[in-house]
């Protein structure tokens, strides 16, 4: 009785393992594709963080320029851009094309509702430094995940060695 029980356990284990293998084999392709889209999203996040840093650096450089208006990236466009890969599949080269042109054209507008000084300048030192640090932190986060992804890919290429 005991031996038969063991055999059944072993059999079910094998079944489970095979099911797992089959599962991996059937979703392996999908995993790679979703990895690619995650990497593309991380790449966009890096670009976005760099653009935000660049805008904040311009604002800081013009901290005392009379008449200078604070600039900022337009959020709606950034959001559209972030959402677009969810609706576009990565299989069509045309879709890749549209996504990258949107990314290259950063829409920068003047920030609204900021208190203005007498010389017409409305750059807020703390706001810009905060934006700069936040962009740097976002960049760092995306970079860390991207590096981890690259490590996984390298691991796969080297067959786990």
């Amino acid at each position, binding site marked *: 009785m005991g031996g038969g029980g063991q055999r059944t356990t072993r059999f079910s284990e094998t079944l489970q393992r095979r099911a797992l293998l089959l599962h991996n084999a059937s979703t392996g392709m999908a995993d790679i594709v979703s990895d690619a889209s995650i990497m593309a999203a991380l790449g966009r996040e*890096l670009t976005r963080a760099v653009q935000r840093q660049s805008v904040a650096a311009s604002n800081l450089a013009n901290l005392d320029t009379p008449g200078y208006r604070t600039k900022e990236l337009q959020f709606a466009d950034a959001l559209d851009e972030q959402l677009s890969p969810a609706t576009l599949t990565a299989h069509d080269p045309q879709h890749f094309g549209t996504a990258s042109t949107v990314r290259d054209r950063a829409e920068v507008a003047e920030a609204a509702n900021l208190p203005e000084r007498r010389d017409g300048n409305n750059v807020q*030192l703390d706001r810009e430094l905060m934006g700069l640090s936040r962009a740097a932190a976002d960049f*760092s986060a995306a*970079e860390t995940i991207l590096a981890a992804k*690259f490590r996984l890919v390298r691991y796969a290429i080297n067959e786990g060695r």
Partner: protein
Amino acid sequence: MSTLLSAINASASALDAQRARMEVAVSNLANADSTRSANGEPYRRREVVLETAAPDAAPGGGFQAHGVRVAAVLEDQAAFRRRYEPSHPDADAEGYVSEPNVDVPEEMVDMLGAARAYQANLTAIGLIRDTIQKALDLAK
């Protein structure tokens, strides 16, 4: 990467501009009591005019950081201060000495502002440099 480099250039241009502002404030302070200058008048207060430097056209249409530059250093045309001191060698016929139109507290405030802005831009350069370093680390 070019965007990050343009950001560093913008911050560096601000360091230049703020240093110029600091130098002018210091020379105003140094000459707060100079009753003679090259043209015979007392020293006139100088003022830095900053303007936004239009960036070069971006290659990919992306945003390029806007730097800043010193557009001009102008002389303040406000009237000189007058002090009654007949014994002074530069006193006029009525015994008044014309003194520079420098307001010391104003210069101190300007200098503090310049120092603050310099510091802010130095911080910005440090953060952007870290970002560039992180981007390079991806290739490791």
